[in-house]
């Protein structure tokens, strides 16, 4: 009996290892294929380019990872990104400096996130429905504030640096992103809040019966998600130097894709920001190689969509 359990435990350990590493193995294979497919892929400037592109997606995916971990979803991220970018552009146009713009943006993001969380937990409504509605509201605000037009801004150097600056040879937004991921990882692994986040995603009712304020945990997670989406909005504004009322439209599907491809379970409770980084790089490499090979946007959509489906199918298989 003991031998038997020992064996099955070993088999389990191997399975768990494989399960945890599938997306990493896929990433390495993809990396090798990309290197072979284009002579321009394996180059420092190209990697810098991929990392810079990944910063916006990365901030959106960071918050969404936590939301998915607690068993939720946030479809309003693109709207938060857009609204923060528009408000930021208008403020810069009015003469505001870097710090007020960033603080206002983050407050807007947290406010919208908290509102999402309160509506979801307070009324017990599906997060899908609430955040979809919120997405339309936010997009409508973007158009209302600008009357549908792009806001052109004379960008101060300090603000431009957020997305386009480098420290050494590393893009500055990548440093911001890496810091945010590191802090999130530490928070999720070592703090009580981090544990509750996983626990709520695993079995919310048990968490409630254990005397934990499960609703507060969820509201906090949606608030954090709003803050990271706001960071994405600020980087977006800095990167393209204009306030685009359509910024972030349709981006949410790629972000969900990145989170799931990386290996986070869509049903919640299992995953972590490390998996999300893998998913982001997979998406980043694919869009990059398709551009480098001159295949165009249509092919990129087909490729990314297919990968999302495969990733979800693999999760399904693992579950049974």
């Amino acid at each position, binding site marked *: *009996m003991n031998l038997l*359990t*020992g064996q099955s*435990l070993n088999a*389990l350990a191997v399975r768990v290892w494989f399960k945890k590493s599938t997306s990493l193995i896929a990433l390495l294979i993809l990396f090798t294929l990309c290197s072979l497919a284009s002579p321009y892929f394996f180059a420092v400037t190209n990697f810098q380019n991929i990392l810079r592109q990944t910063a916006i997606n990365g901030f959106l995916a960071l918050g969404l990872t936590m939301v998915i971990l607690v068993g939720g979803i946030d479809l309003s991220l693109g709207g938060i990104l857009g609204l923060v970018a528009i408000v930021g552009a208008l403020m810069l146009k009015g003469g505001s400096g870097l710090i007020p713009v960033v603080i206002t943006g983050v407050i807007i993001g947290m406010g919208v996130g908290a509102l999402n969380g309160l509506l979801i937990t307070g009324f017990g409504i599906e997060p899908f429905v609430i955040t979809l509605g919120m997405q339309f509201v936010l997009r409508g605000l973007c158009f209302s504030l600008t009357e549908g037009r792009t806001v052109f801004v004379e960008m101060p150097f300090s603000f431009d640096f957020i997305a386009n600056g480098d420290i050494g040879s590393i893009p500055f937004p990548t440093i911001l992103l890496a810091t945010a991921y590191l802090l999130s990882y530490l928070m999720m692994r*070592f*703090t*009580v*809040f981090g*544990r509750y986040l*996983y*626990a709520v*995603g*695993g*079995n919310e*009712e*048990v*968490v409630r*019966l*254990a*005397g*934990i304020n499960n609703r507060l945990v969820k509201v906090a997670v949606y608030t954090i998600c709003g803050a990271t989406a706001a960071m994405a909005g600020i980087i977006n504004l800095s990167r393209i130097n204009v306030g685009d009322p359509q910024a972030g439209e349709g981006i949410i599907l790629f972000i969900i894709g990145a989170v799931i491809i990386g290996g986070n379970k869509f049903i919640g*409770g*299992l995953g972590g920001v490390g998996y999300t980084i893998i998913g982001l790089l997979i998406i980043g490499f694919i869009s990059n190689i398709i551009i480098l090979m001159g295949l165009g946007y249509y092919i990129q959509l087909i490729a990314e969509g297919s990968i999302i489906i495969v990733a979800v199918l693999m999760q399904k298989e693992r579950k049974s």
Partner: protein
Amino acid sequence: MTPIVQMKGISKHFGGVEALRDVDLALYEGEVLGLVGDNGAGKSTLVNILSGAILSDSGEILFRGEKVYIKHPRDAKRLGIETIYQSLALIDNLDVPANVFIGREIKRGSLGRIFRIMNRGEMEKKTRELLDRLKIGIESIRERVGNLSGGQRQSVAIGRAIFFNAKVLIMDEPTAALGVEETEKVHNLVRHLRDRGLAIIVISHNMNDIFEISDKIMVLKTGKLVGVRKKAETSMDEILRMIIFGEPSPEPEQSQGSGNV
């Protein structure tokens, strides 16, 4: 000796349905009380009232002879009354220490008070001590409890329930989903806890289970108390008769049988 828990004259209606009528229960330390009855007899309703999950319409609960009001699972837990539901209420995606300490995490020194950083090492150490003390064999406590066997999961649920000084343990169908060997392990664990002075209520449909671990057996039928028997003074036949026909056998009268009030 006063019972640790006494329930007196408990009645409960659900709409027009009488779930419990004037039921008494007495439970002593170091004793396993088997609670049996057909479906709808009121077993779960009775223990749910004790665990604070539902409120009774009338009747009172005494804890060590003093009247207490249990209006919420929190109140029951404060008294040391812990319940293990059939679903076990485990968080499958977390490991063993995380489940044992959920909601009661050990934090690290002064830094921990501000940032609420967990002391994972300490929680693992305490979990190992607990499992050793209860003679529960789980090789890797860092395994997600969803990957453990049914018996191990039951043991984790029991471990969590008693870790914080439980005095009374309520178990709903503890062995329903277990194989023979695992059932035996859970039985041993229950006996071990009883010998350490815990008072335990076990609900089960399985007569072998009940006769294996109970000291006393209490029979309910359609919300009414049929009687209480000491295991040594009854037989499976008599208990089955009480469950099915709702009447105690002629010899021991109900007043004598219910040595519980």
